[in-house]
């Protein structure tokens, strides 16, 4: 059984929103690239939306990370070694925060270029060069969506350091939330109905993957003896909500008409047509909330 005598790093709301938006930024860029590579001409409008939202989200991520620092004006110390007599770049491949700082910088450049390209290219399919650029950007995007989980694991905190699943879980949920978000955009136009259906199908697969990883997460914590920390007090209720939010895309995937209709009827009462997306996205937010806060409140 794992024993922990560590103190909490006080990573709270800024970090929660960073982890949440980094997931959507990375997931949107990846799905936009996949729509470019595998989609039809009609899908390109939504691919463009993916590239258009990835850049502002990446910028907000950088701001959130900066304001969370105790010394925000020293954010550049993540990139430059200021130790007297040393200097040069500050890079530690074994520190996910160090690695992530560099990748986030690089990813922001990729999202900015793709943002400009999406602004300019309103209709036509992207050239081969642009697609290659998008594929490289997607590798960075997948890293951004997942490394935040590894940041938590590379510590000695209870829960976080007791499982290998966090990077994987954050990635699967980021893709699920991003698919829901893009399907929401697709909903507003009749010509993108097909795109919406395919995104919802993808969302179902991602949600299944996320569900499997949540099970693995709980099993690894049970093995380490810290499951009770993750499920203490209100966190068990949050986890029930998270699992509930996954049922919608999974029910859609398995064409379980009864369960799906019941779920969608319930969500319709919430009002906006995008309630499906709202619920899925709320689920990925709550999952990060439970993971970040439960470990620090033990």
């Amino acid at each position, binding site marked *: 059984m*794992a*024993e*922990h*005598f*560590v*103190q*909490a*790093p006080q*990573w709270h709301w800024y970090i929660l929103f960073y982890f949440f938006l980094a997931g959507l930024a990375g997931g949107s860029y*990846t*799905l936009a690239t*996949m729509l470019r590579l*595998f*989609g039809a001409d009609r*899908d390109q409008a939504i691919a463009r939306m993916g590239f258009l939202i990835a850049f502002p989200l990446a910028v907000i991520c950088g701001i959130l990370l900066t304001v*969370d*620092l*105790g*010394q925000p004006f*020293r*954010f550049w*110390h993540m990139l430059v070694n*200021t*130790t007297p007599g*040393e200097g040069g770049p500050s890079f*530690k491949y*074994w*520190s*996910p925060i*160090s690695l992530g*700082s560099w990748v986030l910088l690089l990813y922001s450049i990729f999202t900015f270029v793709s943002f400009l390209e999406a602004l300019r290219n309103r209709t036509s399919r992207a050239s081969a060069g642009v697609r290659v650029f998008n594929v490289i950007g997607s590798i960075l995007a997948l890293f951004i969506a997942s490394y935040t989980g*590894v*940041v938590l*694991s*590379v*510590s*000695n905190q209870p829960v976080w350091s007791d499982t*290998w699943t966090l*990077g*994987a879980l954050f*990635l*699967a949920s980021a*893709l699920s939330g991003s698919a829901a978000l893009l399907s929401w955009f697709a909903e507003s136009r009749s010509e993108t109905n*097909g795109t*919406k*259906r*395919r*995104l*919802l*199908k*993808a969302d179902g*697969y991602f949600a299944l*993957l996320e569900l499997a990883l949540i099970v693995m997460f709980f099993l690894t914590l049970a093995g380490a003896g810290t499951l009770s920390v993750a499920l203490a007090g209100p966190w068990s209720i949050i986890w029930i909500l998270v699992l509930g939010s996954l049922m919608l895309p999974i029910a*859609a995937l398995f064409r379980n008409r009864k369960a*799906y*209709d019941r779920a*969608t009827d319930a*969500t319709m009462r919430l009002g906006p*047509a995008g309630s*499906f997306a709202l619920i899925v996205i709320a689920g990925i937010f709550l999952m990060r909330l439970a993971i970040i806060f439960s470990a620090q409140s033990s």
Partner: protein
Amino acid sequence: MAEPVGLFTDTSICIGCKACEVACKEWNQLPGNEPQFRDSFDNTGQLDAQNWRHVKFIERMPEENMTVGNGQAWLMMSDICKHCTHASCLEVCPTHAIVRTEFDSVFIQQEACNGCRACIGACPYGAIGFNEDTGTVHKCTMCYDRLQNNMTPACAKVCPTQSIQFGKLADLKDKADARLATLQRQGNSKAQLYGRDDKIYGGLGAFFLLMDKPEVYGLPDKQNAVLPRRNNAGGYLGALLTAAVALFAGAIALRRNGSPAPEETQTVDRSTDG
């Protein structure tokens, strides 16, 4: 590089006077936190940005009436940053603000720290705290300024029972071995050294003689004395496999002729167009 120096804390002769806490605060100009009135003689609570020494009072009142041999009411331990040879804080610090000094101690450069707080979550001893006023993290420096001037750290200098001893690590280890042998001869079978050898984080610059198991004092045993980077491989590998599965599934779902069957289309349209 100077010969490695360190601190040996013999908890068997700590009397809980907290002179070390006071001397540390005086020398390092730490104003301290508001006193906490707890159900204990411990009114400091924990190591943090203001408390770089913390005298733990581990209350062990015997359940039965006191008889010869079971009257041990407290274990006391003057806790401190361990200045680990393999330091978790130094490992995760992304800014290189945490460095190893010429004395082999672990030191936080205040001018370089940007307050990301990764080190707090990594330190297995809870020895680092965040100071809201400076926006940076703080911990014991082993009185780095005193060491540079050939002076003994304040806590060791002031300790009235010599529970805290300062010196060359090699000399301190010899003293610790001799003291442990004495205690064991006297029948203290649970007495043990913590961090004297390399089994705990490669050896500790501030090591201890304990009168019970490490976990009784809130210290991880050798199975649990693990570095944060152990989780890099599993974390990234898990993410990589997930990415591979997700990309494969996504490609199937998003390919241009991969539309759902009409029956599903109808179901989904009902739900989202509504």
